[in-house]
Structure formats: structure tokens, C-alpha cells
């Protein structure tokens, strides 16, 4: 049984135990299945392995936990999808994913106590103000990214940005500026990640 780790350009020659299975114009990076410890350390190990692979080549991560019986099954898994996967691979080439979440800041910067919403109307006004601020952040960051995706979540903004290598520094600096402009928000930015959120075309 082998784990499917990522899709990359045909002809890739990774370091063992990772093997590249060539199929339909792409290469599937595979590794013998091991029991991933389902804790934070185990997940970070998986992530680090993808990052080492990503340092040498563009890649599309495969959904975590995808396993097949053998290399023939790995080849069959992408047969017929080569052209579509190459389009996605070209889309993420020379770029990384940055995660941005926006929450309300936990402590108000103003010295006066925070106004607790006491009615439905006030609650809705507060929600609308949050959404406006989150939209301002989203639009400002969209301008610096090749692509973006919004994830479902309870936060005012939970998004992924596809950012070119050369633009990462400017992106992070813009996040700092936006944080300074919006002290009422907590803007959480992590990365760079492999392009997990851009591996599939939008449905």
C-alpha cells in the first residue's frame, strides 16, 4: 500500500523512499504507507515532507490520507486527468499558498469598555461592520495575489491566497499595514504552504 503525496511535472526524480509514477503526462509522487500519528507532530511531519518536495519542483498536493494498492493503481488514479492536472500545476507554478484569517481582536484598543450588543439590531450592525472590514482586507490582499479562495467558517474572513515567490514579502508587509489600519481586527497570516487550496478547479 502506498500513499499518494502530490502531482508534479513528468520526469521528476525524487529521493527514495519517495518514487515518481509517470502517468498521462504527469508524475505522481508516492511513498510507502506508514502509520501517520494522528496528532499535531504527525501532521507536521507530513507537511514537512511536502515542503521538501515543493522546494525542488512545483506540485499539487493530493488530499491527505489518499492511499492505493500499488504503483499501477497510482498511475490509474490520474489516467485521463493529465491535461487538467497540468493546467492546475501551471497555475500554481512559482507560487505558494498563504492563509489569512480575520477575527475580532480579543481586547479592544480603546480605553472605554467595549459596547456589548444589547439588541438584535445592534448585533446585526456589529456583524455588518465586521464583514465590511473583512472585505476591505480581502480586496487589498487580492491585489497582491495570483488567485484566492474563501473557505467556509465562522470567522469574518477565512481565505487562501496564491502568491508568487517574489511577492510574498510585499504580501506579508501589506498584512502588517492592514493590521495597523484595523486594530479592531486580528489578522492571522500563516505560510508559505503548498498550494492545497488551489489543487482543484472551482466546481
Amino acid at each position: 500500500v502506498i500513499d499518494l503525496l502530490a502531482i508534479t511535472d513528468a520526469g521528476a526524480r525524487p529521493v527514495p523512499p519517495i518514487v515518481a509514477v509517470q502517468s498521462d503526462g504527469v508524475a505522481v509522487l508516492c511513498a510507502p504507507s506508514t502509520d501517520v500519528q494522528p496528532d499535531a507532530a504527525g501532521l507536521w511531519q507530513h507537511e514537512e515532507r511536502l515542503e521538501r518536495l515543493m522546494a525542488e519542483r512545483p506540485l499539487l498536493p493530493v488530499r491527505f490520507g489518499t492511499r492505493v494498492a500499488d504503483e499501477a493503481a497510482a498511475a490509474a488514479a490520474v489516467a485521463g486527468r493529465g491535461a487538467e492536472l497540468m493546467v492546475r500545476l501551471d497555475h500554481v507554478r512559482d507560487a505558494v499558498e498563504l492563509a489569512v484569517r480575520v477575527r475580532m481582536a480579543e481586547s479592544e484598543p480603546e480605553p472605554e469598555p467595549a459596547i456589548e450588543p444589547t439588541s438584535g439590531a445592534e448585533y446585526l450592525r456589529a456583524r455588518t461592520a465586521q464583514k465590511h472590514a473583512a472585505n476591505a482586507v480581502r480586496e487589498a490582499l487580492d491585489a497582491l495575489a495570483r488567485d484566492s479562495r474563501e473557505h467556509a467558517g465562522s470567522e469574518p474572513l477565512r481565505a487562501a491566497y496564491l502568491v508568487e515567490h517574489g511577492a510574498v514579502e510585499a504580501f506579508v508587509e501589506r498584512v502588517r499595514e492592514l493590521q495597523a489600519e484595523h486594530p479592531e481586527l486580528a489578522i492571522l497570516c500563516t505560510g508559505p504552504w503548498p498550494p492545497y487550496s488551489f489543487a482543484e478547479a472551482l466546481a
Partner: protein
Amino acid sequence: MSVPTSSLAEQDVALVDLLDRLLAGGVVIAGEITLAVADIDLVRVSLRALISSVASLDPPPQP
């Protein structure tokens, strides 16, 4: 994204972003495959355990 070495709160932020990506991102392969669904369920359980352990580090409320 390397393993965060910063504060517990920052590690938690990064872990949530990692979980978002591992559980919902990536190329979905259809066909004769085995998804390690049991592992993923355990991951979710493990995250809840982590969140509760972070919460338990907060000082107890004063009586």
C-alpha cells in the same frame, strides 16, 4: 510553513490552518482508493483534545 516554534497560541493558529488544508485541500482522486478516513476522524478528535488542553492552561477564574 515550518513547524512553529513560537507561542502556544501561535502554534494553535498554524495548526488550524494546517488542518483546514489537509482535510479540505489537495487533489481528490476518484476510483479504487482507500481514504484513511479513520485517521482523519482521529485527527479531529486530536484537535479537540489540543484545544481543550490549551484552554486548560488558562488560569482558573477567581472565585
